[in-house]
């Protein structure tokens, strides 16, 4: 039995809807750990309120934030997956159905960048990226709803043969510029190398990596620790009212490239909205965060 249009539509709807209501467990664990290490009382109160907000939304099955953002999806098609569907059309129709039926309704955040008009629909919406996975017998979909709050502070710059120092200084400066506008404590994603487009995707995907997993690349594992300590030492704190916790994690990935080296940085707010599903040929759907 192949993967069907209906499975894709259900995945599209459910992933977005679930991401708006549930803060991932690893993010909650990160907030709880920060409560113990935070030295500022205002900051501890904010962290406590964040955990309370997450718990309330989950219990009531309602949104954590009023800004549902726009959904971005990452689709990975395993080489062993058998598809009997129009994948792209089903993601579109699943999204179109969701905005008509979701309870509670979502606000009109889809923005035409040329006219600034807002609605639930628009060119290229939802935003979807496709990839393949050798040896996998499933299709994986990840949803990351993205709003202005943390989305607008992403940055990318091109360097030529940069040293690690130049790269890390740039990342720190992007963090200083973002300040606390992105609803901290955030997860920072960093991409190094590849090409302009490839590097941005690397950074974005790193914001979706669960917290607490050590980077298998030793150079990057050390860089992640260094950057986490550095950004937290800036002192912006939860929601920017001061404190030791501005990031819960800094996640870095790289790709080989030419001597021009893009470095991309992006953020996911404290809610860390992300959901995933794996769909198998036998119709099974395994939901994850």
């Amino acid at each position, binding site marked *: 039995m192949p993967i069907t249009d209906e499975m894709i539509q259900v995945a599209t709807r459910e992933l977005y809807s679930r991401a708006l209501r549930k803060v991932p467990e690893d993010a909650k664990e990160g907030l709880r750990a920060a409560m113990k290490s935070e030295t500022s009382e205002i900051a501890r*109160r904010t962290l406590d309120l964040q955990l309370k907000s997450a718990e309330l*939304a989950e219990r*009531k099955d309602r949104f954590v934030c009023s800004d549902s953002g726009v959904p971005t999806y990452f689709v990975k098609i395993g080489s062993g997956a058998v598809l009997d569907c129009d994948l792209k059309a089903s993601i579109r129709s699943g999204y179109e159905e969701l905005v008509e039926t979701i309870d509670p309704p979502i606000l009109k955040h889809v923005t035409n960048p040329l006219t600034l008009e807002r609605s639930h629909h628009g060119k290229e919406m939802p935003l979807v990226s496709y990839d393949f996975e050798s040896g996998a017998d499933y299709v994986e979909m990840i949803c990351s709803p993205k709003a202005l709050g943390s989305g607008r502070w992403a940055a990318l710059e091109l360097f030529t043969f940069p040293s690690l120092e130049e790269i890390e200084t740039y990342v720190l400066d992007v963090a200083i510029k973002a300040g606390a506008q992105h609803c901290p404590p955030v997860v920072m994603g960093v991409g190094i190398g590849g090409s302009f487009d490839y590097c941005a995707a690397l950074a974005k995907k790193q914001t979706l990596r669960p917290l607490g997993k050590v980077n298998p690349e030793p150079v990057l594992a050390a860089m992640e620790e260094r950057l986490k300590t550095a950004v937290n030492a800036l002192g*912006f704190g939860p929601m920017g*009212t001061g404190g030791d916790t501005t990031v819960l994690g800094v996640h870095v990935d790289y790709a080989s490239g030419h001597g021009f080296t893009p470095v991309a940085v992006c953020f996911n707010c404290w809610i860390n909205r992300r959901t995933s599903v794996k769909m198998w040929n036998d119709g099974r759907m395994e939901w994850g965060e």
Partner: protein
Amino acid sequence: MSVREHELALPVDRAAIEVLRAGDVVYLTGEIFATAGLPTHERLLGCIEGREAVPFEMKDGALFHLGSLNEEGADGSLRIVYMNPTTSTRFNKHMPRLIPGLGLRVTGGKGGLSAESAAAMAENGCVYLAFLGGGAQIFTASIRKVTGIGWPEMVSHYRVVRIEVERLGPLTVGIDAHGSSLYDSTAQGASARREDILAQMRAERAVAAGGSVKP
């Protein structure tokens, strides 16, 4: 020093606002005004320039940067399904004129406002209250009643909504009426620490590379 907590009733006079200090926690009871719209702020500026009437009189009141899903039922009843703060710095260019123009005593949202807004607050006796971003369930729970929807022709979160709240909070005083801003002080602190942080990172990289740390 432990955090000071205040209960405030709206509308509020200047003396009660001047008691508040950056870092204090506030709970609000009474009527607030909420909008998350950039076009709305443009229109409000038009109001104080006399181009059209304000949807509501806001003197001594609180105008917050809050987005909401609000609706009018077939029977004329008003309700809000959820509300939550939006980024205030988007309105940096409007607030220095709207604070005196509308006679605001309180504004707020998330992320703070510019030094120019803080100066307008100090001059006019106004504070900025910080909401938790992603606190929709906490803040929606304090809504007692929706008492008006201004400019209903706009999309939901762009309208100006008048809401009766009970103990809306906890809200942190981000900018007080004496020119003290937690946003400015944290930003200045971050810039001041940048060189030391970079030096620390340099030392850690040297250790990781097996080199010696320069004194």
